[in-house]
Structures are given as C-alpha cells and as structure tokens.
C-alpha cells in the first residue's frame, strides 16, 4: 500500500494536476458519478432483469 499518489499530490487542486490523479481516485472523488453507478447497477441487474423475468411467467388459462 504505497502512499505516493495520496495526500500531498491531490492537495494541489488546480486543474493542471488533474491528469496526474489516478483514474480510480478521480472516480472515488466524484460523488455524482458514484451516485449514478450506485443507482444504475441495481436498477439493471435486480429491478429491470427481475421485472423482465416476471413478465415472462406464462399466465394460466
């Protein structure tokens, strides 16, 4: 667990340093992107996929 890409580097918040920040850290620092992911993943895999399966249950006659 090296520390080289953590505190000191991201303390300089001017945009020139933006591209030195690792991708993963940019993701973790972006609450709204995380929000979108946190809604999209369960919406797709649990709700939408689940509802599709329910609609395919044959109706008794």
């Amino acid at each position: 667990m090296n520390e080289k890409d953590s505190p000191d580097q991201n303390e300089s918040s001017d945009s020139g340093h933006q591209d030195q920040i690792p991708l993963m850290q940019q993701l973790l620092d972006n609450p709204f992107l995380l929000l979108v992911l946190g809604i999209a993943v369960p919406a797709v895999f649990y709700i939408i996929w689940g509802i599709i399966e329910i609609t395919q249950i044959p109706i008794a006659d």
Partner: protein
Amino acid sequence: MSSLIDFRTCPTTGLKVDRAAEKLIKANAVAAVVFLAIGGLFGLLVALTRWPAVHFLPADMFYLALTAHGLDVLLVWIIFFEMAVLYFASAILLNSRLAGPKWAWTGFGLMLSGALITNVAVLQGQSSVMFTSYVPMMAEPPFYLGIILFAVGALIGCGVFFGTLVVAKREKTYEGSVPLVTFGALTAAIIAVFTIASGAIILIPTLLWSLGLVSHIDPIIYKTIWWAMGHSSQQINVSAHVAVWYAIAAMVFGAKPLSEKVSRTAFLMYILFLQLASAHHMLVEPGFSSEWKIFNTSYAMYLAVLGSMVHGMTVPGSIEAAQRARGLTKGMFEWLRKAPWGNPAFAGMFMSLVFFGFIGGISGVVMGTEQINLIMHNTLYVPGHFHGTVVAGTTLAFMAITYILVPLIFRRELVLRKLATWQPYVFGIGVAGISVFMMGAGTLGVARRHWDMTFADAILPFDYPSAAFLMMGLNGIFAVMAALGGLMYVVIVVGSVFFGRKLAEDEKPSYPEVPPDSAAVGHYGSSESLKIPGTAFLVGIFFVAFVLYYFVNWKYLSEIWPLS
C-alpha cells in the same frame, strides 16, 4: 456567504462547527432515540409473546406490536440517526456550512409527521400488515402515506448532504479527498437514494390502491420492488455503521485507516453490489430463474461481502496499528487487552464489529445461498440473522458513537457514567443472545411472525421438538436483558441531554476521553504501519468459523432431503 454563518470551534478536535448543522444533528438524534424507546418496548412485548411460558399478548395485539416494532426501530430510529450521521459527516467533518438548513428542517418535519401518522395508523389496529405490507394485505391509507412522507423527508436530507459536499468543495473548506468517514456516509447516502426511489415507485401505487383508486397491485412485482427498498435500506445501515466504526477508531485512538485506497475500494464494492442482494428475499419464488437469483445473491453479493470483510479487518487493524505506535507492542494482543474497555464508545463499537461479523455476517452469507436458504427461509432464523446485523451491528454502533456525540455536539457532560460503562455489554450480550437463539429455533423450523408455536387451535396438530421451546425461552430471557440495555441507553442519553452539566464554550468534556489526535477523523491519510499480527489472527478465526458453519449447513441440507 459563509461569513454570515454562525460557527464555533470545537475545543477537542479543532473542527469548525456550523451551529445550524449542530441543531439539526441534535433534533434528528433526539427523535431517533425516542422512537428507539418506543420500538424497543414493542420488541420486548413481541419477544415475551413468543416465550412459550409467558405468551404475553393476544394474537391481534401481537401482530400489531410486531408491525410497530419493525417500523419504529428499523425505519424510524435508524433513519433519523442516519440523518444525524450524514449532517455530521458532511458539515462538521468538512469544516463547512450545511447547505440549505431550511430544507433540512423541512425534511425533518416531514419525517417526524410521517412517523407519527404511520404509528397512529398502526395503533388504531387496522394496519397490522407488518412493516413489509405485502399486497394483497391492505392497510389503511395513512399507513402508506406516513411512510411516503417519511421517505420524502429522508430524501431531502440526502439532498442536503450532497449539497453540503458541493458547498464544501466550492468553498475549499477541505483539501484533497474527503475524509474516509465522509466517504462512508456518502456510500450510505447513495444507497439511500436508490432505496427511497424504489420505495416511492412501489408505495405510491399501493397508497392509491388502498384509497380505491387503483384496482390491482401484482404481488410479485410488489415484493420485488419493495425489497429493492427493504433490503437496500439495510445496506444504508451497514455503510453508515462502518463509517461510525472508523469514526470511533479515529476519535478514541486517533487511528488512521490502514490504507485509504483499500477502505474506499471496499466502500465502492458496497455502492456497486450490495443492493443486488435484495434478491435473497425472492429465493423461494418460482417465477425467477436461477441465473437471476444466483447472480444477484451469490456472485455479486460475494463482492459486497468482500467489502465487509475488508472493513472487518481494517477497522481493528487500524486500532491495532495506533495502539502499537503508542508502545503497546507486547505479544499479539496487548493492544487489545489494554484497550479502553470501560469506555462505552469503544466497547460498543468493538462488540458491534465482532457480532456483526460472526453472527450477522456469516448467517447472512449462509441464507443468501440459494440451496441452503431453503432450510431456513421465513423461519425465525431470519430475524435471528438481522438482529445480528441491524441491532448488534448498527444499533450498537450508533449507541456507541452517541457517547462521544453527546459531549461534543450537545455540549453536556454525560451523566450516570458507571451505568454507561455497563450499557454496551448488557445490550450487546442481550442482543447477541436473541440473535443466536432465534437462529437456533429457526434451524429447528420455528416460523417467524407466528403467534402460537404450539398450534393449539390447528386442525392438523404439529409439534416442534422440545429444544425449540427451550430456544424460545432463552430468547425471552435475553430479550429482557436487551431491553434493559436499551432502557439504560435511553436513560443515560436523555438524562445527559437534559440534565448533564453544560460545558462552557471552550471547555473539553471530561468523559469519555477524546484525545487531541482524534482530529484524524476529519483528515485524509493512511496509517504509517501495517504491522497487525493480532488482527490477522482474529481474521483467521473468523474464516475458520465461517467455513465450518457454511459446510455444516450443506450437511444439514443433505439430511433434510434424503436422496439415496
């Protein structure tokens, strides 16, 4: 703008405290504790009824009490407290003003009125549908209306949290990344948005149905979407109480996370995967494919469980590292033996961690396995499991941090300190007891949500093994202990908030001890040392217990279905 905001500086941590945020934290925390007291009382009544020798309430009152219990503790207590955690983790830890305190008060008002409306509806007796309110059972319209208002209020609270993150960033009140505790709270808030949206999608039509405006709600669709709310809301709790563990580790020991990267990635696992486990509530529904069930409850969920196991290791690990840095290096466990076991914040947090992992965590993975789920689906094993997660885990963690928040935020000295040192043990052991004994009874087949395990008036008689009756008696005894622990908490908190000695503006509270390096709670940064042999050993014990218990259940399954 921010010059108009009324700030004070915390004499203990040096954090800048927006007084508007502070008032909101107080209001939400007080409301939370009041509903915990009410809901806990109902829990005791339920447990006394399920104690065969006592069989306290008549059947109709039992179902009323069970509905009120689930509602008041699972929704109202926990979510009010979580609002307090969100405001603390945003405004206070980021040294920022709270975005839109008026909105936050509106949210609080909606939550409070919603909680009251639903409680009145339940107490009137025509809405004993359990907090899951599965259709086609129909409650009175105010039952649904209250829950919807409560949820809208909570959604506003989440909005204020996100707004505060934006304000703090724009006004540069912190540098770099937000502190880990704030990140954990962010995880909780994200899951909360999904939770509340799912709740709205299903409960608004159900309200219209109970008003007679919609003719039919499909039960399986209801159940699917309801659990997107019902299960995810438990994941808000997990994220919030893990954030609270980190906060307590920082505030009691000045502990820094072993690795910011690893802990944040573990929270990311929660954001992405934890909510998929909602599907474990549908494991016995024939309408879904095994692909859907197993993807959601196994493959995806194991990634989320991995997140929990990472936290389960890094939280005690960070404490061990901090204690060793302080010179407690003898043997494997000096750091743990000499931990402040008399400090209720630490004792509560550590028990919460252990019980959540060993009782709630292991049983959760077992139940989430499609095949072995069949042994215990809808038995008392289920409440046994979630009293391990949401009571021994979340509730105990929230109780623990209250002991720090009352002096720091309410600015009052704690009263009844002797009682406070005992409280986490009485409550924690009581709850561990009810969890284990309900799981035991469930393994023997005893149904959950059932008034009479003797089936006295059933046409076809049925007898549970006598061990099941013993389990329910023990459950009753430990329920009394848990209720006593809950009462101790309420008395200490209410007593301190109203009668504790007021602290002067720059006076440090004398108890529990919060060292100056507790300011670590508001900063980004990992611990210097990774030497944690004691924690590694404890994690080893956990894995052995986990694997043994998992396979014992497969063995048990094979005996239930003799195939040869």
